[in-house]
């Protein structure tokens, strides 16, 4: 049982436990929120998960929730449970940078739809989390404000682009966080930090007010330390929004019920497809799967089988083109989306003569190298004479990958793979080799190209380095609930073997740090 008056224990509870304790009156939202703010104050100097901390706003929300609860008012399920937001969600009155110097100091005049839903759910917003600049990266090293460090080993990357959100969960700084996933930016950070993350079906969560990277791939989603917590947050943020023309006009999938059903541990009749090209036992695209990653993946398969699932092998031959297609479609769309940073309406201006020269000087100073690389690559892919050869061909690959998934989902209800080929690498190790960095995403990208939902959850620690490995589950579009059923069943089986969650094995962080300025 959690002793809620002990802040060290309180921050280690699940969001579901926090919600129950708030409802029961065992703890107040102000106590819970203050415990997380204190935790951030004591460890974030080392972790650097946050770009901005809103102490005053978070405590004000918490106090209002406590007052309403004391007055006997009906409150949403997660009312009073704190959350962290990836800093590409615009937040009225709170700085939003997308990890870019070009937006340093910008305070948005409106809320993203997801921000509004979180405010309506009465959840205290602790702050905004670090990311690779405009979500371009797999390590959070491309942030314009310095890297985030992995709480499992501070010399290593926390994944990216949502490394700040994932690290905040793994460092017990927040029980819940919002991420965005364009090619794996929710799932890969979850994998390397021992946490859970879900990319919903494309259109399942409104993107209004999320600073766009690649509009046909981007999807916001929930991040947490357990499958059930992830589901609870998914139901808060999901649903149709007329402010986003790509928003799905259909009910939010019943993911909480699916997570609860899965936790009972019976997967009888569920067909689990192992994607041959992503299991790392041939020399396919992005080979080089780490031995411990493969070992933990196999053990998770055994657990699913023991829970009654039927394992089948499926082949998706066109996945070999996925990485190449992704690194054409993404830069092409990004080069267009980032044209809005023109020194006129918001953000940095480096004034040098005419508007045209001012724009070029501003973008030179405000954007980092990875953003410049991708804008130039996208400009090239869309330029006259290259369009059919590159962008057009990449769109054909997209069709082929959708066909591969359609065929695979005739044989299986969900597909599985390791989330990433390796455990987290050292900060700085791949920073000068963009192609090596891109290979992190080999297993996560196909889902974005096809618009289908995907989850990553912990599958254990690699024996050779003691660092987290992730297990990816994919489902057909609109069938997000399947991820939660299978994920919760696997989580329960692994927890039974480990005697608790993987996060309980995480090393203690030093808490003697004075608060550093952000």
């Amino acid at each position, binding site marked *: 049982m959690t002793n809620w008056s002990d802040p060290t224990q309180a921050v280690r509870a699940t969001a579901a436990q926090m919600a129950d304790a708030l409802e029961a009156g065992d703890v107040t939202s102000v106590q819970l929120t203050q415990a997380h703010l204190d935790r951030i104050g004591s460890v974030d100097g080392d972790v650097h998960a946050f770009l901005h901390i809103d102490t005053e706003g978070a405590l004000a929300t918490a106090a209002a929730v406590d007052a309403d609860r004391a007055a006997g008012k009906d409150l949403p399920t997660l009312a009073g449970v704190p959350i962290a937001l990836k800093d590409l969600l615009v937040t009225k009155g709170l700085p939003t940078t997308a990890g870019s110097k070009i937006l340093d100091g910008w305070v948005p005049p*409106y809320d993203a739809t997801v921000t509004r839903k979180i405010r309506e759910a009465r959840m205290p917003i602790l702050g905004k989390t670090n990311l690779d600049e405009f979500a371009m990266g797999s390590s959070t090293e491309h942030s314009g404000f310095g890297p985030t460090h992995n709480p499992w080993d501070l010399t290593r990357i926390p994944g990216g682009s949502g490394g700040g959100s994932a690290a905040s969960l793994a460092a017990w700084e927040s029980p819940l966080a919002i991420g965005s996933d364009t090619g794996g930016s929710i799932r890969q950070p979850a994998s390397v930090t021992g946490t859970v993350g879900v990319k919903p079906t494309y259109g399942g969560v409104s993107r209004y007010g999320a600073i766009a990277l690649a509009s046909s791939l981007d999807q916001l989603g929930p991040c947490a330390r357990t499958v059930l917590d992830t589901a609870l947050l998914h139901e808060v943020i999901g649903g149709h929004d007329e402010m986003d023309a790509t928003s799905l006009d259909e009910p939010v999938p019943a993911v909480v019920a699916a997570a609860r059903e899965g936790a009972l541990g019976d997967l009888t009749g569920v067909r689990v497809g192992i994607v041959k090209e992503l299991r790392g036992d041939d020399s396919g695209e992005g080979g080089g799967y780490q031995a411990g990653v493969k070992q933990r993946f196999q053990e998770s398969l055994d657990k699913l089988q023991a829970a009654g699932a039927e394992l089948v092998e499926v082949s998706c031959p066109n996945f070999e083109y996925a990485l190449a297609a992704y690194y054409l479609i993404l830069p092409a769309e990004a080069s267009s989306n980032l044209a809005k940073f023109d020194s006129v309406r918001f953000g940095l201006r480096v004034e040098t003569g005419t508007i045209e020269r001012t724009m070029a000087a501003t973008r030179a100073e405000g954007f980092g190298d990875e953003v*410049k690389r991708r804008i130039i690559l996208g400009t090239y892919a869309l330029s006259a004479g290259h369009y059919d*050869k590159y962008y057009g061909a990449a769109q054909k690959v997209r069709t082929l990958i959708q066909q591969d998934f359609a065929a695979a989902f005739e044989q299986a209800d969900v597909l599985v793979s390791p989330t990433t080929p390796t455990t987290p690498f050292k900060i700085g190790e791949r920073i000068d080799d963009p192609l090596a960095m891109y290979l992190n995403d080999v297993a996560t990208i196909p889902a974005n190209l096809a618009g289908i939902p995907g989850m990553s959850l912990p599958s254990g620690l690699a024996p050779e380095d003691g660092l987290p490995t992730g297990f990816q589950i994919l489902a057909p579009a609109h069938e997000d609930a399947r991820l939660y059923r299978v994920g919760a069943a696997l989580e329960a089986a692994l927890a039974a073997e480990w005697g608790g969650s993987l996060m309980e094995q995480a090393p203690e962080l030093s808490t003697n740090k004075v608060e550093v300025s952000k």
Partner: protein
Amino acid sequence: MSSLERSDVARLAALARIDMTDQDLDRMSGQLSAIVDAVQKVAEVADSDVVATSHPIPMANIHREDVVRPSLSPAEALSGAPSTEDGRFRVPQILGEEA
């Protein structure tokens, strides 16, 4: 095969309105050339008669009634601008010195 020359990168950067120093061009040309070589792989399917997919979930056009609704005030809309004047975005001169 170097698919992207230094001069190509300079031209593309100018099109994308990003000033590049000689050092930037030196550093990025090689990296970009390697990436372009890697993504050439899609050319293997370029001539196939597969239909292109531009959007992952098929959708029809979305319409709504054209009615006035609450929106940002002019002051809010201008609140992040580097420079404003008389309720408008103020920009540096548009025509070049040579024009």
